[in-house]
């Protein structure tokens, strides 16, 4: 009987004959320790003690390492094939029966293609579905607009009863996955490509709605999220060499946003720069602007991200440089913000 179940599961989940130990990325880097790649492993660990966890993917189990989960929990893994809407709604059906499903696909497909399934089938019924949008932003580089999710933060944060969070690095992702287990409603988890350098040396203790200050400073606060936190920290070092002291806030909790951290940034440091790997229309920067304006905080402020356009073809690193979303670029934008506007405000 057990053998029957196992065989059937391997067949319908398509887990047979997969080289699970191959952790090389396309450029040959060992990617074992970076976010998208601890997704399956961390959930597999958690699932040892939590029978509610199930993982779904849409023929991207290699890409998001859901196969690491499938290898250890084959009967709790569902591969729906290239049918993302079906995946999200199946997850909702399972959640209504007591499971906590993690449904993972590229951010562009998760958030844009399945926006209605997320709203109507997950958030509206307040079900504990975890929609995992990985390879988000423009991290897929020359794969192009179809594979970029620059709009997902702006879209997802307007959905009621949907919690929206971004993973910063591997340890941060582990913390998010652990935190998510006992969160009652639906969540959108935004992950990078799985190559995000370390910001957190250990798994942080996260509280939903409370941002993490990863570096303190007094002249400016850079509020960044997801893949932009690491370059923001590097930018702060560049700025320090120029005599500018920068606070860096990891605003991983997009909805709910940490209002107190935003207002404190304005009050204590007097200038705010938001940095996100996404269209500046509607995302993190807009959310921060709403708080600042409604509170009457008149400080130099700039939303930095991808302008409202489709990005050109290029390798990811070239695109980050093109849009000044790498460390030197962020430092440059910060410098401009302080020199062009802070004087006028004073």
């Amino acid at each position, binding site marked *: 009987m057990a053998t029957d179940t196992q065989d059937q599961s391997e067949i319908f989940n398509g887990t047979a004959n997969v080289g699970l130990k191959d952790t090389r990325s396309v450029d040959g880097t060992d990617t074992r320790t970076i976010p998208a790649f601890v997704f399956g492993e961390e959930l597999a660990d958690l699932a040892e003690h939590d029978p509610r966890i199930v993982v779904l993917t849409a023929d991207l189990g290699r890409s998001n390492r859901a196969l690491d989960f499938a290898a250890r929990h084959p009967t709790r893994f*569902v591969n729906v094939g290239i*049918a993302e809407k079906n995946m999200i*709604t199946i997850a909702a*059906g399972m959640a*209504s029966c007591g499971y906590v499903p993690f449904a993972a696909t590229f951010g562009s497909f998760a958030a844009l293609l399945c926006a209605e399934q997320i709203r109507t089938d997950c958030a509206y*019924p307040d079900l504990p579905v975890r929609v995992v949008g990985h390879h988000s932003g423009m991290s897929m580089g020359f794969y192009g607009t179809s594979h970029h999710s620059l709009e997902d933060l702006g879209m997802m944060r307007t959905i009621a009863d949907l919690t929206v969070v971004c993973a910063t690095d591997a340890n941060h992702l582990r913390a998010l996955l652990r935190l998510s287990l006992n969160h009652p409603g639906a969540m959108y988890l935004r992950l990078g490509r799985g190559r995000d350098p370390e910001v957190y040396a250990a798994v942080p203790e996260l509280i939903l709605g409370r941002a993490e200050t990863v570096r303190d400073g007094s002249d400016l606060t850079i509020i960044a999220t997801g893949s932009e936190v690491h370059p923001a920290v590097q930018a702060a070092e560049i700025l320090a060499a120029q005599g500018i002291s920068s606070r860096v806030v990891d605003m991983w909790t997009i909805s709910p946003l940490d209002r107190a951290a935003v207002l404190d940034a304005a009050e204590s440091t007097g200038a705010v720069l938001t940095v996100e790997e996404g269209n500046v229309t509607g995302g993190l920067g807009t959310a921060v602007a709403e708080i600042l304006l409604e509170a009457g905080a008149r400080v130099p402020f700039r939303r930095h991200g991808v302008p409202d356009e489709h990005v050109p073809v290029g390798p990811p690193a070239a695109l980050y440089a093109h849009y000044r979303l790498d460390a030197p670029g962020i430092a440059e934008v910060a410098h401009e913000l302080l020199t062009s506007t802070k004087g006028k405000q004073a």
Partner: protein
Amino acid sequence: MPVKAAPSRKHQLNQLAERANFVRTETVRLTRIAGAGHYSAVFSCAELFAVLYYAQLRLDPARPDWPERDRFVLSKGHAAIGLYPVLADLGYFDKSELDTYTRLGSPFGDHPDMKRIPGIDFSSGSLGHGLSVSVGMALAGRMSELDYRTYCLLGDGELAEGQIWEAAMSAGHFGLGNLVAIVDANQLGIDGFVRDIMPAEPIDERFSAFGWQTHRVDGHDIGALLDLFAALPDPGGSRPQLIVADTIKGKGVARMELSPDWHVGNLVGADYDDVMAELGSGSTHGN
């Protein structure tokens, strides 16, 4: 026992026909409260509601969250107005609550809300989602080793939604013998006949190609529905079950039958009284 079997069957058929009529009269009554509502898409599945809820589904109205209950997903959520009275009648909530239908803050809107209404297994309204929900419920049942079935009621016009076919493909592949999809093939969409707008037929052959076992039945023939449901294979089987119920949109009210004018409407004055009389409301209203 054979001596009693025939009268018992006849009694059951009469009772279920009377409940189907109750679905129709309550739909007319509640629509008047709202000032507009779906009539004809409810009338086509009134016998299906009656047979499923009074004879087929494994339910306990005292325990709407009972893990072992059969699930029912109303994918054609616009028929909810006909389901609410059934749930009230079975005791999921007090019948008087129905009179709040569509009023500000009421649990009862045009489409069903699982968070507010005991007995609703999933919220619906956006067509094309329900079969995927049902696949998830059926997978969950199998993972949990519970032997409940998941029933999903679809419309034939709804089959134009692509997600239906994603779900149909996955149910066949996953071998979900605990899943029963029922298509209320009432022939009409909003703009006219489904066969003219975007044909769904041959529905049974299309599902069969995805690995489903298919059945075809007159959706207004209560005896045939009872027999078909009773003969469904064990839920532990490996083929999802599809029932194409051939129905008539607007069934039971002459002016509405196969008329595209009554998908949404509002009967007032003498028209209301005439339709209630046609449905014989005197014998059922208030039951």
